């Protein structure tokens, strides 16, 4: 099947490209880029007015399978990812059982293959059972297909084990993704520690809980030369640590979630549990700092931290409710609305954040539209407006604080290895 995307605005930072061009896809690869005359047997898609970019990656997703298929499965999560404009996702290992061995990794990949939609690149656990005690069989998992390791949901508390993991991961040149949170400091907290936690009468999570671990990770990365990727960064000072470390040549990268660059703790109204997540929503000045980091390049990528939960885990008091919100189906429009339309970043920078950089960090062998590259492509209609409706999500879960929000910049097509796996009709 040969596919011609005609007249789209092709944005590809890997070749510093931002131009109205035709894109030819053949045998699962990019076959040409330029002014291309269509042949009769080709499928031609009018992409005029659309952004054509290398496939987007969400490098922080919880698929819940195996173990909590009531919240999400690899299939429903893949559907949500595709509808959200992603061609690849990285799923976190905190499933039941934990993805800390090659058998679970193979199971995930087998299920993902059966779903046949987006590329699923699993992240394996750093330590067995996420217990922070013994290293998991990292090499075996890498052989099976993991692209990073993480004890996501918590950080590796023991500094010596974290150091050993960073050293060991160098064999495979994979990053360690760290959920930075000092457990003792965060223990009694449910939301950011600030005037808001005082007003709402709930224990706060000190920003120091995140900053201490970010600082530690940059130090250990410097000592070991291992690569560390800070998950869902949320405070101004954490970002300063990353910025400083990068200047010193330390191999550290970081991601931010849409909710941390859009919402603050002051948006928590009426104890709505869809505003509860770890790290917690921070202050408005942290939100500003995240936007700054997105525009000045110190933040490497945007990831959703898609964390599905059933009603049963959210329809309760704030203190008792589970942490996390889903984000696969809103991340791209939210970023478009709050970063592009508000002129925080350029379209090319947005593509870097969603595609070029996560591909580089995880070494996925994608993230470019150069001739011969694997044809993973995300197409966005920048003018299309949607009203977020959680009832229409492909995800099994509904825990999302953006219901009813009006957003622009809607993914209209996702192509994986040359095959259209998702299409939304916006030109009617």
């Amino acid at each position, binding site marked *: 099947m040969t596919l011609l995307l005609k007249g789209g605005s092709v944005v590809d930072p890997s070749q510093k490209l931002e131009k109205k061009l035709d894109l030819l896809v053949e045998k699962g690869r990019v076959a040409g880029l330029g002014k291309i005359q269509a042949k009769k047997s080709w499928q031609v898609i009018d992409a005029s007015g659309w952004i054509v970019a290398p496939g987007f990656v969400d490098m922080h997703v919880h698929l819940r399978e195996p173990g909590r298929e009531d919240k999400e499965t690899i299939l429903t999560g893949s559907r949500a990812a595709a509808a959200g404009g992603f061609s690849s996702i990285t799923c976190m290992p905190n499933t039941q059982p934990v993805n800390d061995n090659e058998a679970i990794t193979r199971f995930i990949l087998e299920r993902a293959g059966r779903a046949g939609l987006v590329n699923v690149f699993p992240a394996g656990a750093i330590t067995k059972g996420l217990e922070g005690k013994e290293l998991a069989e990292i090499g075996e998992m890498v052989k099976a297909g993991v692209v990073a390791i993480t004890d996501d949901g918590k950080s590796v508390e023991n500094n010596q084990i974290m150091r050993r993991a960073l050293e060991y991961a160098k064999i495979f040149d994979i990053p360690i993704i760290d959920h930075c949170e000092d457990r003792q400091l965060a*223990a*009694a907290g449910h939301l950011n*520690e*600030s*005037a808001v*936690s*005082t*007003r*709402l*009468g*709930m*224990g*706060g999570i000190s920003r120091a809980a995140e900053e201490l671990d970010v600082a530690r990770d940059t130090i250990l990365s410097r000592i070991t030369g291992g690569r560390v990727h800070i998950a869902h960064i949320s405070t101004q000072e954490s970002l300063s640590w990353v910025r400083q470390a990068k200047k010193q040549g330390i191999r550290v990268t970081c991601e931010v979630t849409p909710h941390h660059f859009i919402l603050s703790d002051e948006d928590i109204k*009426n*104890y709505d549990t869809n505003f509860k997540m770890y790290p917690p929503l921070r202050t408005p000045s942290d939100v500003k700092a995240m936007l700054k980091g997105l525009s000045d390049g110190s933040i490497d990528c945007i990831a959703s931290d898609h964390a599905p939960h059933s009603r*049963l885990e959210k*329809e*309760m*008091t*704030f*203190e*008792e409710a589970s942490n996390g919100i889903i984000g696969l189906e809103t991340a791209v429009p939210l970023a478009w609305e709050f970063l592009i339309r508000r002129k925080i970043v350029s379209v090319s920078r947005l593509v870097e954040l969603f595609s070029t950089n996560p591909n580089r960090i995880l070494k996925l062998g994608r993230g470019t539209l150069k001739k011969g590259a694997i044809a993973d492509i995300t197409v966005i209609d920048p003018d299309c407006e949607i009203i977020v409706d959680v009832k229409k999500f492909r995800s099994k879960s509904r825990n999302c604080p953006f219901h009813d929000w009006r957003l622009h910049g809607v993914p209209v097509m996702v192509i994986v290895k040359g095959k259209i796996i998702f299409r939304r009709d916006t030109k009617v």
Partner: protein
Amino acid sequence: MPLREKHLLGIEELTLDEIELILNTSRSFKEISTRPIKKVPTLRGKSLINLFYEPSTRTRSSFEIAAKRLGADSINVDVSQSSVTKGESLIDTGKNLESMSPDIIAVRHSSAGAPHLLSQYCETACIVNAGDGMHEHPTQALLDALTILDHKKKIEGLKVAIVGDIAHSRVARSNVLLLGKMGANVWVCGPPTLIPMEIEIYGVKVTYHMKEALEGADVIMMLRTQRERQSEVFFPSVKEYFALYGLDTKKMGWARRSAIVMHPGPINRGVEIAPELAEAGYSVIFEQVANGVAVRMAVLYLLLGASEEPGL
């Protein structure tokens, strides 16, 4: 003028006029509790459910007596013996109780926002917050204000020192809000480990020293050290805590001679207050409890639709 909201979730939601309405109504109800026959038929046919997820002596019996003195029926749901122990959620319990058509559900819960959550799911019953986690305890602050006003002409301009575990105290939060709305000069005092972040947003002054808090104080509110809410160590020992923040006769000397001492109970004698002080002349601790009944009568009465002060 009735109350604007259907529920009483916190002092935060009340206007100054509403607070004054509740206090004035409470005053007219106080007398009922002094009669030989302590009952009026004002709320006959109405019913109150006390849904308490935390232990309580004062508040629960106070709500119950308040309802009964107004002729309403009151039922206590003992959570430790209910289907909650079989795994029923707060929302389901609330909806089940509401199906029996109570007019008011007074709820106490260890989590902040529990009454707010119930109010979103209950369509007919009025929800009264009888204490939610570390958030608010509005009827306590109202009865405290009533008690202060029994001794002082007005609250505006008074120096009120709230001493102890501010961080874990819903009583402190509701009082800070209410006294602030009424124009008091509020000081909070305790070890820095028990002062919540940015408490200054309420316009209170913070000190770690009793002398500063008590000097010239008109009202001293001692808080209980809530050891059941403390998962960690906030001070080295009870002995040291008492030495720094416990109220004794020497520290009382810093306050005005006319100062009154309050405590929401239960008292830990010897921890936050010297054993003999609770009965001293300046202690109004038991008056607070008596006023609790009147305030809760007023709240029940006003929530159930009465728009004017009752002619009794």
